[in-house]
């Protein structure tokens, strides 16, 4: 074990020296990976946070609307809540499919170029 003055995993310290991080970072391949990732995760995070806050605010400030019964004793509020669970499952599935197809090949390519293929 060596010092952790530089925090990355010790076993890779020797390798650390070999990489020109700035060059990799400014390479078009890396920039593409970075912008693809950011262009997906930021808007989707915004989307589900707004959708969730809408739910919380409606439950807090529009209880009358949420209490309208739709089917027997099942009201809009309950359906809204269940939809939050459904949308969480859906976004999870969407992201994983997208990341497996889009992100993994790009990051694999970069790892290979940097001689760290796995």
């Amino acid at each position, binding site marked *: *074990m*060596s*010092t*952790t*003055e530089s*925090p*990355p*995993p010790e*076993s*890779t310290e020797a*390798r*650390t020296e070999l*990489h020109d*991080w*700035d060059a*990799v970072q400014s390479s078009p391949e*890396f920039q593409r*990976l*970075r912008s693809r*990732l*950011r262009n997906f*995760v930021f808007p989707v*995070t915004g989307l*589900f*946070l707004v959708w*969730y*806050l809408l739910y*919380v*605010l*409606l*439950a*807090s400030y529009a*209880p009358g609307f*949420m*209490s309208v019964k739709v089917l*027997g*004793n*099942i*009201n809009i*509020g*309950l359906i809204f*809540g269940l939809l*939050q*669970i459904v949308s*969480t*499952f859906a*976004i*999870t*599935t969407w*992201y*994983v499919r997208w*990341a*497996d197809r889009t992100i*993994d090949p790009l*990051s694999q390519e*970069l*790892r290979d170029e*940097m001689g*760290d293929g*796995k």
Partner: protein
Amino acid sequence: MTLAAGIEGSNPILNIVIFGVFVAITLGIVIYVSRRRTAGAADFYTAGGGFSGPQNGIAISGDYLSAASFLGIAGAIALNGYDGFLYSIGFLVAWLVALLLVAELLRNTGKFTMGDVLAFRMRQRPVRAAAATSTLAVSFFYLLAQMAGAGGLVALLLDISDKTQQGIVIAVVGVVMIAYVLIGGMRGTTWVQIIKAVLLIAGAAVMTVWVMALYGFNFSALLGDAVAKGGAAGEALLNPGKQYGKTGVSKLDFVSLGLALVLGTAGLPHILMRFYTVPTAKEARRSVVWAIWLIGLFYLFTLVLGYGAGALVGPDAIKKAPGGANSAAPLLAYQLGGTLLLGIIAAVAFATILAVVAGLTITASASFAHDIYLNVIKKGEPGAANEEVKVARITAVVIGIVAIVGGILANGQNIAFLVALAFAVAASANLPTILYSLFWKRFNTQGALWSIYGGLAITIVLIVFSPVVSGKPVDAATGKSASMLQGVDFHWFPLDNPGLVSIPLSFLLGYLGTVLSKEKPPAGKFAEMEVRSLTGVGVEKAVSH
């Protein structure tokens, strides 16, 4: 509440036997999986990163579905209906933050602790000290919640009403937990969490199907019965606002709670640390997917169990039971399957507490040993690394003792609420710093320190001066105030949950601290961190199991 008797029909001996069998089997497994353990820090903290995504996903759900989720949410739904449901939704949606923004990048950047990521491109010692401080604070609140739950369960299930005897049982729980951590390290703890998650989810599934079968799988009929049992207040169970809708302040409190829940998860140190137990970012992604499905499913079960307890046991019986709301799920188990099912569910609830407490303890001890001892006190000296695991083990024992004492003192507090406070601290002190470190190039040491210490201080001050600690009106029925302290009132902050104020302020402090500092982060460090976090280059290969 010390005079409360155990649940009628509960057989304490049977409960103890079932729980004893669980402890014996899990200890056996912990010893078995630890036989090939190596002495290094990587093995103790993260099992060498050798778990698979699905294994880790199940363990995450075991770590996350605490006693608060099981007993607290079921009870909240039984008594407050719809408002209890918000907890589940917040706890689940929060996982998307972890999935999209944190899990994979964190896996690629760090090694053992949250401090690894936060200090990556900052000045090591101050940032690691700050990260460890907030890790210990969050873990402490969370531990207190679990141990308080243990005390309530003891009263309920073992028919022990004497506070001293309850304290002895809490101490036994604490000692077993310390044994798991010392013998098994992260490997053993993970297996305990996996076993517990399977038992908990299976137990909840059986009860859910049972309840639904009693109502011909007609959820609307179940709700109708819960309303009927609720008497005059019954109809309100279906609608939002029963607990939080009374005044303008309580409505804001609901929004504040919702914010803390959704942003807290991705800042919980014991959850973050679980991402280091898998070898790659892809496996970290798979872990979260498994966790989201299991946790989502479990919260659907608790919805049925909560209303089921309301319908089959009735809110009055639940309120009168020792442990109050927390006893809804065990009472429902007894109603359905008699003494035996109650015994099984009781043992599962104990196992839940045990597994979560073990996960918190290993996280807190790793943070102390790795961040504070190795990097702050010893300044990362090579020789000190050998001492690191020893320090972590000693810390685990100390934390175990703190948990036992805290659990005895916090005996009787509402556990869902204590967990919500832990989430508020995590969302305020940790999440802004994590997100800024991963995504904002300019972010620097001063920004990190302002947002961690500032977030922590604001959250704790607002909690201390909130109605939670003092000044809630005295309940005519019980003659006691709902606050922690009786007979004093020094509160000036109106909300129970500080998230609405503390989270935005912490983000702001991180921003201000950064732009007001002349410090330039080391050249190239951000490039290195970004390349590592996105590509996973240089991540240690897993030790195969």
